[in-house]
């Protein structure tokens, strides 16, 4: 157990370093990302820019700057170049919205995928299956911002059923919190449901041929019992692994498009803004958040799959 945790921590550390080096490196290639100019703003004189270079240490070699930036971010003392906002508090401000989006949508898409995927597998080859396939694949084929914009206009403005974007804290007004999140949850889930249900379906159909299923039938268990107690348990394994990864990416600000369309002011929207502003510090912090989330959730997922499939447990 300890070895497992230590190994994961090492992986996380390595991943954090690697992803931040990549980000830092990419931005040094852009001349207009000159941090002194970003800090000085428009109309700055060459003298002012030079002074900023000296004061912030932008003349020093790149690796020195990189280390200093990482130290600042990890100790909570990193400040965005253009606005001076504390980067860590900016991210903290965005986390409630992103977490609400991720966990809510995650729950919806997981439950729906299991339902749809199981139904499609059970009715494989028949009309229901084909319909569900087309429905699922349509969801996967639609750009989220297209779906989101249309939903926002027709359900939000024309019918006035939902607010026009924005985010309300759960603690201040639970009903408004819910209303603000329903459309984003739906838009984000539609994509995943399509995919996960297809995966589950083929996973279930594959295991129908497995030995343990035949054994279970031979033991006299009913169809339903076989399905729930044995097939689903194993078929869920690929789903759980994916779920961990996808959820981690959404938490780390990967749902940029959904957050932008609905103005959720989460980490994703912050990521988009920082890229456009060439705000490398905020971006590095967000990248680190994603990497950490990926590793942590990956570890959680591994534990769960080990529980679900004893064969895996034996192997680790």
């Amino acid at each position: 157990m300890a070895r497992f945790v230590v190994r994961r921590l090492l992986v996380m550390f390595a991943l954090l370093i690697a992803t931040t080096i990549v980000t830092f490196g990419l931005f040094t290639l852009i001349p207009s990302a000159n941090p002194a100019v970003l800090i000085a703003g428009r109309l700055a004189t060459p003298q002012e820019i030079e002074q900023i270079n000296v004061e912030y240490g932008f003349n020093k070699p790149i690796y020195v700057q990189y280390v200093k930036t990482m130290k600042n971010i990890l100790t909570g003392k990193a400040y965005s170049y253009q606005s001076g906002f504390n980067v860590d508090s900016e991210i903290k401000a965005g986390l409630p919205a992103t977490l609400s989006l991720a966990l809510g949508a995650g729950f919806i898409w997981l439950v729906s995928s299991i339902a749809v995927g199981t139904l499609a597998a059970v009715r494989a080859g028949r009309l229901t299956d084909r319909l569900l396939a087309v429905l699922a694949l349509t969801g996967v084929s639609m750009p989220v911002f297209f779906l989101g914009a249309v939903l926002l206009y027709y359900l939000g403005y024309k019918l006035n059923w939902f607010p026009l974007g924005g985010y309300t804290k759960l603690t201040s007004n639970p009903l408004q919190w819910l209303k603000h999140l329903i459309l984003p949850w739906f838009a984000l889930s539609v994509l995943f449901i399509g995919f996960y249900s297809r995966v589950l379906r083929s996973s279930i159909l594959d295991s129908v041929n497995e030995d343990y299923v035949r054994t279970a039938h031979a033991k006299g268990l009913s169809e339903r019992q076989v399905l729930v107690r044995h097939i689903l348990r194993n078929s869920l394994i690929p789903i759980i692994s994916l779920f961990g990864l996808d959820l981690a990416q959404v938490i780390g600000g990967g749902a940029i498009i959904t957050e932008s369309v609905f103005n959720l002011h989460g980490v994703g929207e912050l990521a988009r803004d920082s890229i456009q502003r060439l705000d490398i510090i905020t971006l590095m912090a967000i990248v680190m958040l994603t990497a950490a989330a990926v590793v942590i959730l990956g570890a959680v997922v591994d534990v769960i799959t080990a529980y679900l499939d004893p064969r895996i447990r034996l192997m680790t």
Partner: protein
Amino acid sequence: MKRYVKPLGAVLAVVIAAIAIGACGSSSSSSSSSKSSASSGAAAPSSSSSSGTITLAQGVFPQSLDPGLDYTTQGAETNWLVYTGLTTYAHTSGLASTKLIPGLATALPVITDGGKTYTVTLRKGLKFSNGKPVVASDFTYAVERSIKIPWGGSGEFITPNIVGGAAYSSGKAKSISGITTNDATGKIVIHLTHPYGAFVNVLAEPTLGLIPAGFPLKVQPTSPPPGVGPYKVTNIVANQSYDVVRNPLWPSMNVPGIPAGHVDVDVKVNSNVSANALAVLNNTADVFDWADTIPGSLQPQIQAKASSRFSFINLGGSVYYFFLNSQEKPFNNQLAREAVVTGLNEEALSRLGGGTLVPACFFLPPAVAGHPTSASCPYGTPGIGNLAKAKALVKQSGEEGAPVTVWSQERTPRLQWGTYYTQFLNSIGFKATQKPIADATYFTTIGEEKTLHPQTGFADWNQDFPNPIDFYGVLLTGGSILPTDNENFGETNDPQINTNAAKYSAISTTQLQANSTQWQALDEYTAKKAYVAVFGYQKFPKFTSSRINYGAALFNSIYGWDFTSFELK
């Protein structure tokens, strides 16, 4: 197999319930106009106009609510009411709102010594919003902090103009030698390095609004300094919202000409500008930020549903143009530049902007004294443009087929303006390609003059103050060309403009009305030389919910919405 439908049924039930909640909730959210769906904890308004909270939907978060840093219209819109300077602007509508009035000073500065010495006296009994009394030396501190942070405009408007400013900026001096104050009498004397007629306006900038001496010299974005003004800012949530609330100490200070506010303003920032417009239309938000663009596609229904609270106002202080680099091919050729100005279809550009542009050809916009009032445009009245003549001019110039890179921003309609302009250049004989850059970094990108030398592209300027030196000194004189962070994108370096602008810059803003013929002549000269292809002055949306007394709501020509004029019906 009924059992397996259960999970699906449960999900369906949740979804249906959600829609039901949404549908039931909608009737209450649209009828009760006192609650905006986006705000948390809005105060319940009374029916009288003297209390209450309104919501302002803004599309871009200000660079900072700390006046030592902010150099954006979004920030200035709030900051000028929070940080009153020694001078300020009249709280009225139209062009009269560019008139300078005393702010925290007892009267407008007495200017002596050939325009190089400014003397004012601070009003007595002033207090900051945190209750601390104001003293004269607080002004010096505000100047120093503005130079230290640095404020975007300090290098242009402050540091070189005040004696000792440059020494303080470079760290050689510990304070600014050119400012002397007397806390006992409240007298402030400022010595300038040269007669700079716009200095009265610079004193009105929020960045020179008085703040307590000793406040941290580093920018404080979430807890900005206290100021003296009708409003103060609280509850700043980065990138999301901030509250501009009435300063309870203000009314008792009895500063003439600057009214107290009637309502508090909760500003909510959402980049989806269409949603903001729809919210104001729906009365779920109260005010649409003046600096945002209402999509043309929404105008018909806004016009139909809300014509009594919607209109476009030409504030007269902004100019939209394509710069033409007179140091680089092909636009170093006068004929090539004339071709552009002759053929440009300003009507098309206005339509792309949703019909919100006033076609124009002169660089100085109407609110700035010096805008030519009697001359006609040298290359034809702005309209749909003369393509045939433009093509002929290009041929004549010998620059046909020259490759041109057109720089543009990315948001609507600036992207479309760039696309149209590129296509236009191609149609008159150039080989143009468009290069869009993200808005947030556009100006600093094309400002890399040393490495880039941009040939042509979009630029705009909204007045800092109604003195032509704000336009010429920053955008068109040879001295304003900087290796980085350049604003004279066209690298215009014309001796006539250089000498005359320097000469006229000595004319004080307060004397400009009577002395505008010189600036007018210079502006007509600029138009003839076609250094820039002006294509319009922007009209801004005055759009509120039905809760607001629309007739009483005012635009200031420089700062847009005047929050002190908002009142509930």
